[in-house]
């Protein structure tokens, strides 16, 4: 079954690449089967091809990673169905098929999650997914009422034909639906538990790909339906910008409190998606959003697969139970190091390229305070990024078992090598993707990025040369290393992990030396961080559910289960209907 999945994924990738090169489309007018005014279709636009490529690539990488897990055939079936629904979402040319794909995606994800999630987490997921789907349906139906068509081609016409109240309602419903799926702060109640409790190899799929479907829908909404380039200063722009900003700042701090590795990465996903949402509030930001989607997909796949390997070998998933694995698993360490350099957005590697585009967009549009807040949140991410690598690989091992662990199996390492190679290449030659993104931008009707060579990432305001940065880094690194090696003093290896300067004391096995999971908790003494960490959206939702129960208790007084009372109510209802009908 595993090999079959890998083969299927390669075929899918081949199909997507084929469609990118030779686009095709299919339309059908359902009037033939009696449904008037409904036309459906699928097409392969440049935007669809990009997101389909992300899906196919992630599917292939996940299928390689599932090699060492024993899964039932039902699981594989659901996985294929999920991928098919994602393809339907990106390739559909109308909102009806889009919604069908969306629903199938939600339900297959629910079934896939039900293998490992606790009951409470599962209920949280399905309530939020259904809320998102229903509000999406309502928005689509409102849009249909504008021009009696579901097609994307008619969507802008339909939107402008709506009254302004209906336009606001439509946008609010759509944004609500998409923000739930993106996990924006306030609506993220379901996300952290789902990511942390799902199968270790399924979480990268959730984080890397399924959130990008919401990004795709948001791009279609903002560019094709609403045409945000023509509405520069409306409430939509500010909502998007502030929601994205708040998500990235708050999620970056909430990640500090967590002991479980996957929860930290879940909050990190929320923060990174916050960057994308903020920059999408401007039409010019499309290039930054696309670049960041690509980089975020790649890096989250890398990080989650690395963590999956760790959990597979050690069966521990908390920082307080890990530590000191660097010399036992050096290859995994280097892969995670590359992953966190990209996540932090450091210049030699690819993370900086997408951040650079985002910052340039915000600078051009003069949103300086939002830009400073974005850079601040990017700097505050360093804390949990360091905690991630320190808690797992550096420091001291917290149990005997960790001192004799082997390296992860090859099937975990192959995807990581592939992903980090891609990230390094994109970092060295950031201009490679400019041409590709320009085709998408041309199709969307947005100004293109200037192309100045494959190693230069250029925007209207300036550029930087990725190849020079990484070449300078390599040359200086080699020179300094040579100088250090050729110096006179001999290097004495510390005898074992207890040979540290510990104020004259000799630590032993019982001394607690691994400063792993409590890293960052001391920040609770700072005012605004304490506010962020103390409050949680769970308070609000529990309050909401209590109110629902109170409301239900009130209704219990009427529908009390007592047969005579119910009969009386039914009679009164019929009487009212009769009187109204007779009128």
């Amino acid at each position, binding site marked *: 079954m595993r090999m079959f999945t890998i083969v299927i994924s390669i075929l899918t990738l081949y199909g997507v690449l084929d469609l990118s090169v030779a686009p095709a489309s299919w339309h059908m007018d359902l009037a033939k089967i009696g449904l008037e005014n409904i036309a459906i279709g699928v097409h392969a636009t440049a935007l669809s091809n990009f997101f389909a490529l992300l899906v196919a690539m992630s599917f292939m990488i996940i299928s390689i990673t599932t090699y060492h897990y024993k899964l039932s055939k039902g699981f594989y079936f659901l996985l294929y169905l999920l991928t098919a629904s994602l393809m339907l979402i990106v390739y559909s040319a109308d909102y009806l098929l889009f919604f069908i794909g969306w629903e199938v995606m939600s339900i297959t994800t629910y079934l896939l999650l039900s293998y490992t999630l606790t009951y409470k987490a599962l209920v949280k997921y399905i309530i939020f997914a259904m809320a998102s789907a229903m509000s999406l349906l309502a928005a689509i139906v409102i849009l249909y009422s504008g021009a009696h068509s579901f097609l994307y081609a008619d969507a802008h016409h339909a939107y402008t034909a709506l009254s302004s109240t209906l336009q606001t309602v439509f946008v609010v419903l759509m944004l609500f639906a998409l923000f739930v799926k993106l996990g924006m702060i306030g609506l993220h109640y379901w996300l952290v538990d789902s990511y942390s409790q799902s199968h270790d190899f399924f979480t990268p799929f959730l984080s890397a790909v399924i959130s990008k479907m919401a990004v795709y829908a948001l791009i279609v909404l903002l560019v094709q339906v609403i045409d945000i380039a023509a509405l520069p200063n409306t409430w939509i722009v500010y909502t998007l910008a502030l929601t994205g900003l708040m998500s990235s700042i708050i999620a970056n701090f909430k990640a500090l409190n967590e002991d479980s590795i996957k929860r930290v990465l879940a909050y990190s996903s929320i923060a990174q998606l916050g960057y994308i949402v903020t920059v999408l509030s401007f039409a010019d930001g499309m290039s930054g959003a696309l670049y960041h989607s690509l980089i975020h997909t790649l890096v989250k796949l890398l990080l989650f697969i690395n963590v999956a390997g760790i959990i597979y070998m050690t069966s521990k998933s908390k920082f307080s139970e890990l530590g000191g694995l660097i010399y036992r698993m050096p290859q995994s360490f280097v892969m995670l190091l590359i992953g966190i350099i990209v996540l932090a957005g450091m210049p030699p590697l690819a993370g900086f390229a997408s951040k650079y585009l985002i910052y340039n967009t915000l600078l051009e549009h003069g949103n300086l305070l939002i830009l400073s807040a974005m850079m601040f949140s990017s700097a505050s991410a360093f804390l949990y990024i360091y905690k991630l690598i320190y808690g797992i690989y550096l420091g001291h091992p917290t149990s005997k078992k960790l001192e004799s662990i082997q390296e992860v199996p090859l099937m975990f390492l192959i995807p990581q090598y592939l992903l980090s190679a891609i990230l390094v290449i994109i970092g060295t030659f950031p201009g490679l993707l400019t041409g590709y993104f320009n085709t998408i931008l041309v199709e969307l009707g947005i100004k293109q990025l200037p192309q100045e060579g494959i190693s230069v990432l250029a925007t209207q305001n300036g550029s930087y040369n990725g190849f020079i940065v990484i070449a300078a880094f390599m040359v200086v690194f080699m020179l300094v290393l040579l100088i250090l*090696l050729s110096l006179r*003093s001999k290097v004495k290896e510390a*005898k074992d992990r*207890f040979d540290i300067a510990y104020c*004259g004391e000799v630590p032993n096995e019982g001394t607690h030396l691994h400063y792993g999971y409590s890293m960052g908790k001391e920040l609770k003494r700072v005012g605004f961080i304490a506010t962020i960490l103390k409050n949680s959206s769970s308070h609000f939702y529990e309050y909401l559910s209590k109110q629902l129960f109170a409301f239900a208790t009130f209704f219990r007084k009427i529908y009390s289960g007592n047969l005579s009372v119910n009969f009386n109510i039914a009679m009164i209802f019929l009487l009212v209907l009769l009187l109204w009908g007779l009128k």
Partner: protein
Amino acid sequence: MQEGFIKEGFTQESLLDETHLKEQKQMESDLNSDTSHQSSVDYLMNWFRKRSIFVLAYGTGCGAIEMPPTFTSRYDAERLGIRGAATPRQADVIIVSGYCSYKTLRRIIRTYEQMSNPKYVLALGSCTINGGMYWDSYNTIKKLEEYLPVDMYVNGCMPRPESILEGFIALQKEIAEGKASSWQKYEENYEFYRKNQEAVLGSKVAPAYDADWYLYDGGL
């Protein structure tokens, strides 16, 4: 040091008898001699080492009360290039400032072994020479030389900052002449020192981390 303290006609030499006078003259000539038996690279290295001394911030005994005045504004040891260091990894000199109880001795040995060569030991006070005030205590060691190699003694109880500075200047002179090589003495006579340490500390002796490395001759 204040001049004119000794009155005219009352020299130190007249206080000493023959043998002690010969010893005194020998010591003074040793202090003033410049046996340049070093290569030029060693000479240069030792010149830099004498100009920059990092002292471990570790007060081991009651003599430590005289260390803060030495390093602060009144007596200012920083003019000689001496400053404090926080960890043994960064330090060159460890000052054993007074008596060493067995409890402290274990930490001093562990700390000394974690310092990197070349390292020097400056012993303050008479307790390190012969037990000093605690000569009949059940809990302190009497001769530091049996447990750690000492480069320079500064006697007194406790030595004032001026004496400590004079000790540093004498240490600098020894470093410049290449004679302050107590770390080599420790490596070469490790069994002797280890035997004494174990006799006193028993099972609580510090782990022998650095012993194996003395036989190691390669590395990055």
